[in-house]
Each structure stands twice: as structure tokens, then as C-alpha cells.
């Protein structure tokens, strides 16, 4: 640990920490554009200039260094005893001196000379570093009366637009493509004040290569100004009208931490949230752009039952009674309950409890989306398992590695059953031939889903469940991190939160369940499921909880 003097504070920071991070740890903001903790540091924006102090032998004392230094590249280290400043400090730095303030003001003036100042129509307005730092550190007056550069707008790829006029050439996007994605689509063209970010083009300006990789959307997040915008979000909403809630991406078993931006009428945007051990600062475009199903008009909104081969809307009471009657008249050995790798730990725990304690069946299976492809990038991996909670569901349903009803064994188990209760909740994905044949053979199939999916099409009763954005709960990712999802929007129509449906069924079957919110179930999970003793909602918080037995699996 290095003992440093930061403005008037005396603080300890770890060796190798740069000034921006050291200051951030102690509540001091050093404004910056080009520096991003997940990328290399070119120190090109010059916004983070700070004033280090050095020992000046002729004066025999510590004085401000002649040159200001960039906070991003200046790191602190423990100094040898004879080189301590003022006898005790490893480093002395000011981030609030007059020189520093003047330098910030000057740099901001330069940053704005060619900027179009089109904040009223800019997507970034309200969450823009150029706005915020100008407000906090700028002069509020422009002296520039010359002609401004007007570089063209550019379509860089499937989801990314570049408003070159707003670009401050911090090169975060270029470095992201080079270092994290490893794809290197972006570069600088021209020189000096005519610098522009661009993709490779031929002499007629036709793109030779688009910014088209599965991590491309991250460049929009890290762009500190409104230059790179997402076509998906463009002109949809002012940021300050949206509410945010922390959640976990349901796209695959990596479990990227996300922030869901929503309004009353649905989800508007998903952005990655930092988690050091899981996704760092990033997420993939499959997850980022994959939220649209939540807002879909085709969502199941009301329970349905099959009458003469056709689906007919019905009431919850009717649908549940129908199911309860079937369950009651069927031999427990002929009942199969199938949980969902898309569902939360809480739902799957209740489902397991329903099956074992109320229905008295041990025929429990797990259903999920078909595996996709794994994508590896230099600093990021997209998992092949397209379910957010495969591991958690297995733990909750107490299905070990040799569980009877996973994979193909599930469908042979289903083939022998009379009544099957299947919870899906998958946004998309056809089911295989074996699955279809097995489910068709079932006498009475109950499907709890969010769409009229392939499995729902085969059902006798369909119960409308909800997506990750409409419920609370927790997912366990492939590495054993238990993380929280939070409810953002209300379920559509009469759709109900999945664990509430399960509880209703259990109650009607005479079971004893009386939970009022998902956290209560999590408390019970902590008591009953091995390794989950710390997985209460309170302890999970925003950072997640790592299961102890990670290595044993």
C-alpha cells in the first residue's frame, strides 16, 4: 500500500493504482474522456491533468511539479524510505489546484470548438461526459468564431451509427475493438483536426468491412459523448425519462450484470454493469438487443384451455381448477414436473417442492433453450448454454449430474407420463422432434410460458408466465455466481409471476405454501439447499454471491 497525500486527504491506495482511480476511491472526481478502466491508456484527451508534487533540491522542499501530469498514466508506488516526500508520503498530488482547474477549462474549450452543440437532439444528452464536465469544469463561454469542421455521419454496422461531428477522438471505440473484441474494425482516418473514426473503405467510400461483431454495441456505451449511437435506441427516449433497475442478462449462462432502462410501456435499453469476475464492463449484442420479446404484442396475456382442439381464453380460477382436477385423479408416478433453466432459483425451488411434497412425484425434469455457439474474444466469452440459470435450476430441483430427467432422458420420461406440468419461459427456439413426439403423447399437458411457443402449441392448458424483467429472483451462472434480477415492468394482461402460479397450484392441491415475495423463498433456499446458505437476497445485493462448492462441480 502506498501512503499518498491527495489534495488535503491522507489516504492509502494499492501500489500501481493510477490517480484517477485513487481519487475515485476517495470520492474525488478527476474528469476524463479517453481513459477507461477496461482499456489501455493513450492519455490523448488531456482532460485528467493533475498536479504531482516533487522534491526540488535547490529549494530543499516539496513543490508542485513544473509540468502537470495525466491522472490516467500516473501511478503511485511505495517509495523507498529515503525518497519519501515530506518524510512520510509516497506521492503527493493535487486535483484541485488553480493550474489544474485552468488546464481543464482550456482542454474543454478545445474539445468544444468543432462540436456542433446539438444537445437538444443528441441521444447522449443527460448522460454525456461532455455536458457534465463542461457544466462542472468548463468556462461557459466560447471564443471560437471560425468555421467548424463538419465531418459526415456514418453507418458503421448493423447497430452502430457515428455522428462524427460530436466525436472528440478519444479512441475508446478503436481500442475496444482492438483489445477486448480483437476484431479491429475501427481506425482513424485523415490527420489532425480532420481525424475521423471509420471502418475500412475502398476508394469509392464503400465499406470493406462493417463494425459487425457480437460485442460491437459496447462501443456505444463507452463513447463518452453522443458520437456513437445505437440504432436500436436512437431517438427512442430521453435518458432522464427512463428508470433504471439492476438485473442479470438472461441470454446465456455467463450472467452478465446489466442495467435495464425502462418506462411504463416497456423496456428501452439494456446496458452492461461492471462485475469484475463475470463480465467486467462488457456484454454481447445478443443480450443487449435481445430484450424486444419482453415488449412484444404477442405475449401470452391470459390463461387458455383447449376445447375441441382449439385454444379458448379462460379465467385463472378455471384453468387452475382444471389442472388441480387432473393432478388429483392421476397416479403420482404418472406425473412429470419440468422446471425451466430460464426460470429463477425461487421458481424452481417452489416447483421442486410442489412436485415432491404436494404431488409426491420424483419425476422432475429440466427444460431450456437449445445450446447455441460459444464465442470467444480476447477478453470476453459468450457461453453456448443459452439459459441464464441451468446450474441454479439443477441445484433447486435437486437434479444431480446423473439426474434422470435432463437431456434425452427427459423426453423418454415424458413419453411414459399421463400429466406433465412444463414451465418454459424461453423467449424463442423450436423444440426437437423427440421432444415434440413425447409431448404429443402426453394425456394432459400444462405449459407455463410467455409466448404461444412450440411447446405451448401442444398444451391442454396454457398459463401465462413472465419474463426476467417482470419478476424478482436470482439466477446462478455457470461459474456459480448467484445474482439478483429485479422487476422493472408489470406483467402484460393477466400474466402472473411464475412462482405465484406455482404457489396457487400448490395451495389448491392442499399444499402448505404461503410466500409473499421472492425473497422469502430465497431465505428458505438458504436454509435447505446445500451451498446456498449465503444466497439470500440481502446478501446477494448488487454484487452477487459466489457458491462455495464451485471447485467441486
Amino acid at each position: 500500500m502506498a501512503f499518498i497525500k491527495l489534495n488535503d486527504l491522507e489516504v492509502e491506495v494499492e501500489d500501481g493504482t493510477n490517480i484517477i482511480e485513487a481519487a475515485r476511491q476517495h470520492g474525488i472526481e478527476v474528469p476524463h474522456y479517453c481513459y477507461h478502466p477496461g482499456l489501455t491508456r493513450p492519455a490523448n484527451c488531456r482532460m485528467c491533468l493533475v498536479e504531482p508534487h516533487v522534491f526540488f533540491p535547490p529549494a530543499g522542499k516539496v513543490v508542485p511539479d513544473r509540468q502537470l501530469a495525466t491522472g490516467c498514466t500516473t501511478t503511485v508506488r511505495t517509495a523507498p524510505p529515503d525518497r519519501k516526500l515530506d518524510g512520510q508520503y509516497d506521492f503527493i498530488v493535487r486535483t484541485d489546484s488553480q493550474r489544474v482547474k485552468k488546464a481543464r477549462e482550456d482542454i474543454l474549450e478545445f474539445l468544444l470548438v468543432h462540436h456542433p452543440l446539438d444537445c437538444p437532439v443528441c441521444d447522449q444528452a443527460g448522460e454525456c461526459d461532455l455536458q457534465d464536465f463542461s457544466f462542472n469544469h468548463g468556462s461557459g463561454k466560447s471564443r471560437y468564431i471560425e468555421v467548424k469542421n463538419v465531418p459526415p455521419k456514418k453507418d458503421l454496422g448493423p447497430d452502430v451509427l457515428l455522428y462524427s461531428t460530436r466525436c472528440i477522438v478519444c479512441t475508446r471505440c478503436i481500442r475496444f475493438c482492438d483489445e477486448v473484441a480483437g476484431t479491429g474494425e475501427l481506425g482513424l482516418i485523415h490527420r489532425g483536426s480532420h481525424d475521423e473514426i471509420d471502418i475500412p473503405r475502398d476508394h469509392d467510400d464503400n465499406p470493406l468491412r462493417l463494425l459487425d461483431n457480437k460485442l460491437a454495441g459496447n462501443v456505444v456505451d463507452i463513447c463518452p459523448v453522443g458520437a456513437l449511437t445505437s440504432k436500436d435506441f436512437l431517438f427512442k427516449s430521453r435518458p432522464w425519462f427512463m428508470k433504471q433497475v439492476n438485473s442479470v442478462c438472461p441470454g446465456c449462462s455467463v450472467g452478465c450484470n446489466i442495467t435495464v432502462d425502462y418506462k411504463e410501456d416497456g423496456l428501452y435499453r439494456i446496458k452492461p454493469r461492471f462485475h469484475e469476475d463475470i463480465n467486467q464492463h462488457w456484454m454481447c449484442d445478443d443480450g443487449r438487443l435481445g430484450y424486444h420479446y419482453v415488449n412484444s404484442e404477442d405475449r401470452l396475456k391470459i390463461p387458455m384451455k383447449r376445447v375441441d382442439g382449439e385454444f379458448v381464453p379462460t379465467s385463472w380460477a378455471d384453468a387452475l381448477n382444471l389442472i388441480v382436477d387432473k393432478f388429483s385423479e392421476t397416479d403420482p408416478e404418472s406425473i412429470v414436473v419440468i422446471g425451466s433453466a430460464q426460470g429463477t432459483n425461487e421458481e424452481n425451488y417452489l416447483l421442486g417442492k410442489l412436485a415432491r411434497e404436494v404431488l409426491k412425484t420424483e419425476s422432475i425434469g429440466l427444460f431450456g433453450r437449445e445450446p447455441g455457439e460459444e464465442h470467444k474474444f480476447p477478453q470476453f466469452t459468450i457461453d453456448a448454454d443459452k439459459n441464464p440459470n441451468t446450474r441454479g435450476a439443477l441445484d433447486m430441483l435437486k437434479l444431480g449430474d446423473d439426474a434422470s430427467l435432463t437431456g434425452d432422458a427427459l423426453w423418454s420420461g415424458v413419453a411414459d407420463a399421463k400429466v406433465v406440468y412444463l414451465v418454459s419461459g424461453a423467449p424463442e427456439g423450436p423444440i426437437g422432434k423427440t421432444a415434440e413426439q413425447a409431448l404429443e403423447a402426453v394425456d394432459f399437458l400444462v405449459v407455463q410460458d410467455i409466448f404461444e411457443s412450440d411447446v405451448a402449441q401442444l398444451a391442454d392448458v396454457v398459463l401465462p408466465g413472465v419474463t426476467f424483467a417482470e419478476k424478482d429472483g436470482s439466477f446462478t451462472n455457470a461459474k456459480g455466481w448467484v445474482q439478483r434480477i429485479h422487476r422493472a415492468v408489470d406483467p402484460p394482461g393477466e400474466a402472473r409471476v411464475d412462482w405465484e402460479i406455482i404457489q396457487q397450484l400448490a395451495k389448491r392441491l392442499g399444499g402448505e405454501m404461503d410466500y409473499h415475495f421472492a425473497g422469502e423463498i430465497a431465505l428458505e433456499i438458504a436454509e435447505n439447499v446445500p451451498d446456498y446458505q449465503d444466497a439470500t437476497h440481502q446478501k446477494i445485493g448488487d454484487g452477487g454471491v459466489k457458491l462455495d462448492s464451485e471447485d467441486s462441480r
Partner: protein
Amino acid sequence: MVQERRILYEHLDVPDINTFDVFRQYDGYKHFEMTIKEYKPEEICDMVMQSGLKGRGGAGFSTGLKWSFVPRDIEPRYLCCNADESEPGTFSNRYVLEKNPHLLIEGILICCYAMGINTAYIYIRGEFTLGKRMLDAALNEAYQHGYLGKNILGSGFDLDVYSHPGAGAYICGEETGLIESLEGKRGQPRVKPPFPAVEGLFHKPTVVQNVETLCNLPFLMGRGVEWYTSIGRTYGDTRFNPPQSDPNTGTKLYCISGDVNKPGVYELDLGLTAEELIEVAGGVKGERVKAVIPGGSSAPILTHYELECRLDFTSLTLWKSMLGSGGIIVMNETRNIVDCLLNIMKFYAHESCGQCTPCRWGTPWVRDIVQRIVDGEGRQTTIQRPKFGITASGRWGDTGEMEEVYEDLDLLESVANNIANVDTMTWNTICVFGIAVSWPAVSYLRKFRPEFEAAIRDGELVTLPIEEATVPPEENYAYQQRIVPGLFEP
């Protein structure tokens, strides 16, 4: 009358000196042969340190000191010879490359032997097509005769030298810009530290030396430190280098151009005054000297009464200018300083690499302001600002009075100072290109303010008589703050 002292250029005019055979006739490679036989590498480094040889590329940093920073335990180490001579007004390296390339190779051999370097790159300016041809031919000959390659002269010392043409960017003459370009990247300077001596080419310790610096080495080794230090001047305790002495030893290839009767490269002892140099170059063309740029276009300008300044690294720094690359441009009474500044600012606005904010957007801004003044569109509005000058304490500073200046002139000075501050000698940029922009802009404006004011007032360029165009010595910031080197001599 000062005489030329030709050392590097001694045999420059010998016909066919560019060929190995003729070069050998004039003692070529003899100094290297002697060095490799008689000296250990450490002894060479000590000699370079003692000689006080300063890098001739522009910064004037002590070569021996630079070499001492190179870690000897990291392999491989590289030498980059900077032959990307692109400072306007500078053309001395070009003569070496075109006429006497073997001398450079000999210098490289000595440097690499001293530093234990086995690979050297010569980054040669792309426009020097003849120089590149001559150099490549010389490299081939040197390989053929066993002066390059494996086991040179049976000493066990290996050296490969590659020549690499630049692609036409001024900034690739900056040492880290050069390294980036050599690595095949966009020519943009790196953030320092780490300095190239510690982490340079391919992230290995790298010595970057100018052609002229390397050409000094054979003579330094061959004739000894005592001989070398007898040339030039050594200053005593200056405020920049206390308490050591500050040597400006050896000769310098001064490139004199502009309004002189005999422009060209002159090899002279370091430390002659500007007046003496102009005399050597045949005197001023026209009636009188109006101004002198002492060290390439990026150096602050000298007025006609600052010609007593000695043109060496130390003295010019004390006069708030710099020797830079030694490109001296003389201007006579017919030259308009505003127009000259526009010319220079156009060059720098074009050449800014665009990497860091102040330079990327500040440099074209400065150019645009000057352009507006030249076009007669300078704003007539004035503002009040604190007047700087000699204060009651006898020092330069805020006098407490106010002065009225044209808004555009204040803006020009302020924008340039925000890129790199002339008064505090600091810069907000990554590299010293910022200085190359702001120092000329501010010095031209402050020293020839009447001419700028006339251009705004009259709405057109007006070339004033010298006395009227120049700010008098008592109002000249550099003249008033200069430290006369004589005071500090031992």
C-alpha cells in the same frame, strides 16, 4: 571574420566520397577500427559523457546521459537513427546522406558497439529519395566489406542496419512518433514516461539519435575528448543545470537560409552569435536584418537587437528560444512577420498528428486566427487586460496596470498558450509539438506586435519599418527575462 571548422563535412565535397573505396582513402572506418580494438564499450560511453556531446536533433539532450539510462540487462536493444529531417529550414542531414553516407554508418557502428546493440534502423525521410539510394548503396558496400553483418572485422561484434523510408509526416521525426511509425503503426508520439531508452522500439530499450549526433562519434573517438571539448563553449553554473557546468562542445551544422547572400550549411563551432553567423553566410540580403529564426521554424524568433545572442543550446534557452535543429532563417526589412507566422502555422496545422486534444484542435484554430488577420478580417474590438512588464521589483511580471489590446491578438496569444505555455515553459500536449506551435505564435506576436496591430487596424497586411515593427527591448518579454550567459561563466 569567423572561419568554418569542417569536421563532419571535411570530405563532403570529395568526388565519389559516397563510395567505400574513396571513403577508405580518406581514413574512413579507421576510427571505428581503432575504437573496437582499443576501447571497451563502457569506456566509449564514458568518453561520450565527458565530451558533453548534446543530441543534435533538437532537444539538445546530453547523449552520454541518455545512453546511461539504457538498461544493459534487457536484450535486444535497438538503435534508431533519426534521418527524418523535416523541420522547415533544416537540411544538414540530407547532405550527409546524399554525399557521405559511410560516415553515418561508421557513427552507427561506434554507437552500437558501445551500447551492445546488434540491430539498427535508419528512419529516413521519404522525400529523400536520392539520400535513400546513396545510403542503401553504402550499406550494401559496408556489408560486402565486412563492416556490417556477422562478426565484424573478426571482433565477434554483429550489427545489422536497415534503412526505412518515412511516409511523409513531420511528427515521425519526434522520437516516439518515429518508433510507432517504424513499428508499422500510425505516426503518433507515445506518452512519456517510459522514455525510449527504457522502453522503445518493440517495447525494448532503444537509443534514438540524430544523424548529426552519430556522425560526431568517429571524430570524438578518433581525436579524443580533450580535442572535442576544446571546440565550442562550456558554460558554468546555469540555473538550468546547477551546479554542474553546461557544455556546448563540438561543431554544429548550421543551415542558414532566407535573406542572406550565401545560404547553405555551415559547420561552425557551437556558441557563435547570430550576427557572426549571418556574416559567415555572406551577410544579409537587402538592407537590414529584421528577424532571425534561430532553430528551425518551431523556435521563437529573435529581433534585430537580439542578434548578440549566442546560437548554442544553453544560451538560446536562456534567451527563451532554442537552437533546435540549427535551421536558421534570416528575414530582412521586406518581410511581414504576420505573413511569416501564417506560413508557419499553416505548416503546423497541417502536420499536427491529431492525437491529443489541445494540439488537434488548437493548432488549426491558431492558424485560422492568423489567417483572418492576414485577410484583413481581424476584429477591431479591443479588450482590457493586465499589462505585463518590468515591475517595481525590477522583475518581469504583472505591472498592476491595464493595457488595451485587440481581441483577436489576445485570443491568439491565449489559445497558443493553452496548447503550450510560453511563460511557464510547460505544455498540455503529449509531445513537444505543442511547443513548436505556441512558441513561434506567441513570440512573433509579442515581439512584433505593432505589425499585427497594423494589420488589424488597416484591414490589410502592412510591412512596417523595422524600428516601428519591433517591440522595443524594454517591452520585450524574452529580452527582459534573458540571463546573459557571461554572468555564469566559470
